[in-house]
């Protein structure tokens, strides 16, 4: 299925993020092979160069590795790595803003967590 791409971000970036999300959520496991560039290009109706770019980014970020003659495989420990990174991004970039908002609205921890169960 050709997904609806967000027109704001370059497609290769969106694809990168999609793979990362899938790894984090456990849909793609460590040691699993990524589908070939061709297959993804054909499936998503996107040109293969864009797909290659996304795959290259995944390689550069140490999330996948190339196994000679066999393609790209998710590196062992990638999920942990991603989890750490996302945690760091969240704690450094997003959390301070949210914390400010919580303080501004004078919400207590119980109120915040209660909202989750209701």
């Amino acid at each position, binding site marked *: 299925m050709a997904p609806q791409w967000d027109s704001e971000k370059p497609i290769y970036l969106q694809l990168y993020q999609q793979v990362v999300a899938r790894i984090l959520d456990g849909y793609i496991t460590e040691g699993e092979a990524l589908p070939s560039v061709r297959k993804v290009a*054909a499936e998503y109706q*996107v040109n293969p160069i864009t797909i290659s770019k996304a795959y290259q980014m995944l390689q550069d970020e140490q999330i996948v590795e190339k196994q000679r003659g066999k393609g790209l495989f998710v590196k062992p420990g990638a999920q942990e790595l991603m989890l750490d990174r996302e945690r760091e991004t969240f704690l450094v970039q997003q959390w301070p803003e949210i914390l400010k908002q919580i303080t501004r609205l004078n919400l207590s921890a119980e109120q915040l967590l209660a909202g989750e169960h209701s």
Partner: protein
Amino acid sequence: MSELISITGLNKSYGKKHVVNDVNLSVHAGQIVGLVGPNGAGKTTCLQALLGLTDFEGDINVLGHHPRNDREKMLNDVAYISDVAILPKWLKVSQALTYMSEIHPNFDIEKASAFLAKTNILLNDKVKALSKGMVTQLHLALVLAVDAKVLVLDEPTLGLDILTRRQFYTHLLEDFYTEDKCIVITTHQIEEIEHILTDVAFIQEGKIVLAESADGIRERFKLLAVTQDNVEKAKQLKPLFSNSLMGLTTMLFDDQKAETLQMLGNISVPSLADIFVGVMTKEICA
């Protein structure tokens, strides 16, 4: 990457009508170039000149061959699918396969048969018994089996239902495309192939009005949503076109810095269709 197609100073007139006017185009290996333009813009003529199907003025070089003088050798590595449903009605599928395998040095009959086996096309069918989508599938099978280096597609999906259109591009990307080949495609359905293209060329009244890589085009053009109070200021920056609806005006800008525009409203990336309409309209009004 190596240049597979080089067109310089292409001109063609039918009598007094100047159909193609000084067109320059260069296609490298790995590129999927969309030649987009309104009807009568000269797209088909450009492609026909490329294939040696019509005479022309100017220089064209395809894979090192001249399309008229070196037609046969060039056509060993070039394939063509056109919307004008051009497989003859009396031809049987088996006859097409036999003929291609006998006259085409690069034709792999196994590949073609394997592809056809996945469709509803039978070997004994005549082309006249096939639906439009199946004829395109057959033509695609023949082209895939030739494994051409240059593929020229002239509105290949015209009149096909969405399922067949999707399948066409799927097969094109999965079974045909590699980084040492190139594809030149003309189509009216820009939205469909927007993400498949690596490069775009807009053609209008025989002239190329824009030629840019797909990434470059998205960086160059910006869509700005301005509120009424900023409209005048924005107009001074000379947008390509502007469209007002329900209190919000949308403007398309070429080569404007994001910072300049951000002060006036929300910027977003326009779709290729938006850019096409904008550029074409500007050319008409200019």
